């Protein structure tokens, strides 16, 4: 049986270095075991039957014809769920299998296991589900209307948040306003939802799965199976990208249900089409903003009304509303604030976490309006951001003190001052023009534009959430050499956490060899690989556990050497004194039994905000970034080529500078994608483009070269001074691209993705 990835060791590299990934060789040779690669001699394949309707009553399900198909070993419906048929990250509002009603197109209704995936798919088509269609909420702007159909019995509001600060009825000499609309983006990770559930001899189950948070999955799977956590063991299989789309359950419970019923290992692996129905998306949003300012551009007030379409189930809509509300005015000093943010249920596809989480949508609106304000008062678009940009020591709109670096003005000026790309040559390479190899122009009708944007994003879980990570660190001597083993349950999804864990252990323990134990639930929770938090929080936990190991080793050495522990240090695999003189080998101190410590580590607590005023210390840390986009637009055909996408970001401390740059590059591409091309088109509650033929993500021809400047203003409250890295680039890149297209075309462009017809006006 092939299961999860092997324990990974690798070579040198401490905090601040850029050692190579320990899983790199496995990944370039095709040997790395992703969730969809898992295999077992006796396994059968599971598939899902999904609802064709956005809203319908299930009148009856007849599984007889499916069960009769040769090779089929199980067909399950809601009636077969042994525990509570309810899952969900914030609210248990979603059934594992639809029970009596379906609330979105694609909702799982039944499961089939068979000896071949095609057999299972064909059998699933023979399940007869009789539906009675119900009126559906397909326009979330009417979800709260008096006469709107109810998606859930308790009403269609998931969460409303309001922020009230300063003068309730402010006025200003300059007023600008706009309405903005953001389409539904998909995470489009390349590794489809997959996993292998293996029944165990103790009556429990082992689930190998690609996910972002093993322990929150475990809790949900246990509830549905009606089994205690010690019998539901989760193991992280290789993860082919995540970006928020693996926070909610997909095939987890389904594979376990089929495995428990058949007594066999069950593999499930979604097709790309099913993947579009099998995970939540980024919330589409409708935003209405108004800024009031002095004649010189200094902001006096800001008002915002933000609506997020949560779709059929809540997922993390509440937290997205929280971010949209608390962060939705951008990184600016605004004395008077009036924000209403709402998330609603509809019968559209469920929406939840995606990189940037509630800030991405808002940034398109506040940055477009900031440009509008600059033009209105007649000052430079960069300087208006510098003028109004948040600074350390300010309070933000929830009254939270910004108590570490907030270099808004510096970041936006850095990107402005970077060299601009060369003018388009008289005879350009068509691959560098809008339309590219389609050969639609040789430069005629092409206009260049430049746009700027700046953002800030919270790092870690907020609003009083008990956000922690657990690390178990062990120091052994193997073959005479000290070896550290780091065990956390924090998911490596491609970002490079395993490299960072090794770097921290090497730094703190002074050893070279560091083994990263496979990620599983046999150690405490690592929290979610979300919210740009793992280097901060799990990094903090690994650091703390290493310190505990170091203290134990030093205490032991102090006893052996008859020295004061305060004088002893670990370096190069030795016990040394303050001058670096070697006093003992680690092997002599650690002995055969090794030293092991487990630490649960927490960052500074956050707090719930006041429900009336929206005031409170909602967030742990803020991360800032700025982008400048340069675009060439074929104004006759409405085609765009991004020529340059340059950025500056404060990362506090770059634990692994190469990986930091990789996050900034990849994150910027996703933001650019939303501005230009990425949208799940939903009409009447149905997804019209569930494929990579029709849902476009940037290719290597679409991405421009990027200039990147990384600032390191250490956050004194965070381990090593780190600041979360992964999300800000996805937030500020898109609005910069949109601004550049506006600059090139002179069009208002109040919706993203910007489509050709928006540019041409046809």
């Amino acid at each position: 049986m092939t299961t999860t990835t092997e324990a990974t060791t690798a070579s040198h590299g401490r905090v601040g270095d850029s050692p190579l990934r320990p899983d790199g060789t496995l990944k370039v040779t095709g040997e790395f075991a992703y969730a969809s690669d898992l295999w077992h001699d006796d396994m059968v394949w599971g598939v899902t039957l999904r609802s064709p309707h956005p809203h319908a009553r299930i009148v009856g399900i007849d599984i007889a014809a499916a069960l009769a198909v040769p090779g089929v070993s199980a067909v399950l419906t809601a009636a077969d769920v042994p525990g509570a048929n309810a899952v969900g990250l914030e609210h248990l509002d979603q059934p594992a299998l639809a029970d009596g009603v379906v609330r979105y197109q694609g909702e799982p209704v039944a499961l089939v296991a068979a000896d071949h995936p095609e057999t299972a798919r064909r059998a699933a088509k023979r399940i007869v589900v009789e539906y009675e269609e119900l009126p559906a909420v397909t326009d979330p702007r009417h979800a709260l209307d008096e006469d709107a159909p109810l998606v859930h019995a308790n009403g269609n509001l998931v969460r409303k948040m309001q922020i009230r600060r300063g003068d309730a009825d402010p006025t200003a000499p300059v007023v600008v306003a706009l309405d903005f609309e953001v389409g539904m983006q998909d995470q489009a990770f390349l590794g489809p939802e997959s996993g292998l559930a293996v029944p165990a001899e103790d009556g429990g189950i082992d689930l190998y799965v690609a996910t972002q948070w093993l322990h929150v999955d475990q809790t949900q799977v246990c509830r549905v199976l009606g089994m205690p956590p010690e019998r539901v063991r989760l193991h992280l299989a290789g993860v082919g990208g995540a970006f928020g789309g693996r926070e909610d359950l997909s095939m987890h419970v389904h594979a376990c249900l089929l495995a428990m019923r058949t007594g066999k290992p069950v593999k499930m692996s979604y097709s790309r089409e099913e993947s579009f129905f099998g995970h939540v998306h980024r919330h589409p949003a409708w935003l209405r903003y108004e800024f009031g300012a002095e004649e010189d551009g200094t902001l006096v007030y800001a008002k915002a009304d933000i609506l997020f379409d949560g779709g059929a189930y809540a997922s993390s809509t509440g937290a997205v509303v929280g971010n949209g509300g608390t962060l939705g005015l951008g990184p600016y000093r605004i004395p008077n604030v009036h924000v209403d943010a709402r998330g609603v249920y509809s019968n559209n596809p469920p929406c939840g976490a995606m990189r940037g989480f509630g800030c991405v949508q808002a940034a398109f609106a506040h940055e477009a309006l900031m440009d509008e304000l600059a033009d209105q008062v007649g000052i430079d678009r960069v300087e208006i951001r510098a003028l109004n940009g948040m600074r350390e020591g300010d309070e933000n709109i929830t009254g939270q003190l910004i108590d570490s670096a907030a270099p808004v003005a510096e970041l936006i000026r850095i990107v402005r001052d970077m060299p601009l790309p060369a003018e388009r040559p008289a005879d350009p390479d068509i691959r560098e023009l809008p339309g590219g190899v389609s050969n639609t122009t040789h430069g005629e009708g092409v206009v260049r534009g430049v746009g700027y944007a700046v953002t800030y994003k919270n790092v870690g879980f907020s609003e009083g959430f008990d956000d922690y990570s657990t690390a178990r660190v062990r120091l052994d001597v193997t073959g005479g050499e000290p070896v550290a083993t780091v065990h956390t349950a924090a998911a490596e999804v491609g970002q490079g956490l395993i490299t960072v864990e090794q770097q921290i252990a090497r730094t703190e323990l002074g050893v070279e060899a560091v083994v990263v134990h496979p990620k599983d639930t046999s150690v405490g929770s690592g929290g979610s690989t979300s919210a740009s938090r793992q280097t901060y929080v799990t990094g903090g936990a690994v650091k703390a556990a290493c310190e505990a190991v170091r203290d134990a080793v030093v205490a032991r050495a102090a006893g052996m050497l008859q020295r004061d522990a305060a004088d002893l240090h670990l370096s190069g695999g030795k016990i040394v004194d303050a001058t670096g003189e070697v006093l003992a080998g680690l092997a002599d101190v650690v002995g055969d039994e090794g030293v092991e410590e487990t630490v649960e580590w927490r960052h500074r607590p956050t707090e719930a905000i006041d429900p009336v005023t929206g005031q409170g210390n909602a967030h742990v840390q803020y991360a800032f970034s700025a982008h400048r986009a340069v675009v060439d637009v074929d104004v006759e055909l409405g085609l765009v080529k991004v020529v340059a996408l340059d950025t500056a970001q404060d990362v506090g401390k770059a634990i692994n500078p190469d990986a930091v740059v990789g996050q900034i590059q990849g994150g910027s591409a996703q933001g650019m994608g939303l501005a230009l091309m990425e949208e799940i088109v939903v009409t009447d509650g149905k997804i019209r483009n569930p494929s990579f033929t029709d849902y476009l993500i940037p290719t290597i021809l679409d991405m421009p070269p990027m200039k990147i400047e990384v600032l390191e203003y250490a956050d004194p409250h965070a381990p090593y001074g780190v600041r979360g890295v992964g999300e800000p680039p996805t937030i500020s890149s898109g609005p910069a691209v949109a601004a550049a297209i506006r600059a090139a075309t002179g069009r208002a462009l109040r919706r993203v993705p910007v489509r050709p017809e928006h540019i041409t006006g046809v």
Partner: protein
Amino acid sequence: MRIELTVNGTRREVDDVWEGESLLYALRERMGLPGSKNACEQGECGSCTVYLDGLPVCSCLVAAGQAQGREVTTVEGLADGEELHPVQQAFIERGAVQCGFCTPGLIVSTHDLLERNPHPSDPEIREALAGNLCRCTGYEKILDAVRSAAESKR
């Protein structure tokens, strides 16, 4: 049905292949070669790229039966024993690998590009790799890796 083909230099006989199976499925699920990846299975992402008689193809779009009697080289067949191919080495060293799901297809496509054009310009690299989607890297480090691999072959 049974198919016979040569994979990474070894003759293989594969039994019980259903006529509707793709070469990708047969490689992954019947021959123990899951290196070629199943990201879209409709020829859009390039993650399943393999050589078929020396030409790169999306193995998800080739019926397994079409590979009868032919030669297939997958990502698993590019290293020389323990020694990585320069393209593989460059992807590791240049940080072109994050989640890595696109990597096998990009390795094969880059291998093919450099066989045909040992010193490609940036626009040539971009055009050659336009059929390989990557969601993690923004492609910059992939370009670095291709340039570096080309340089190392000089």
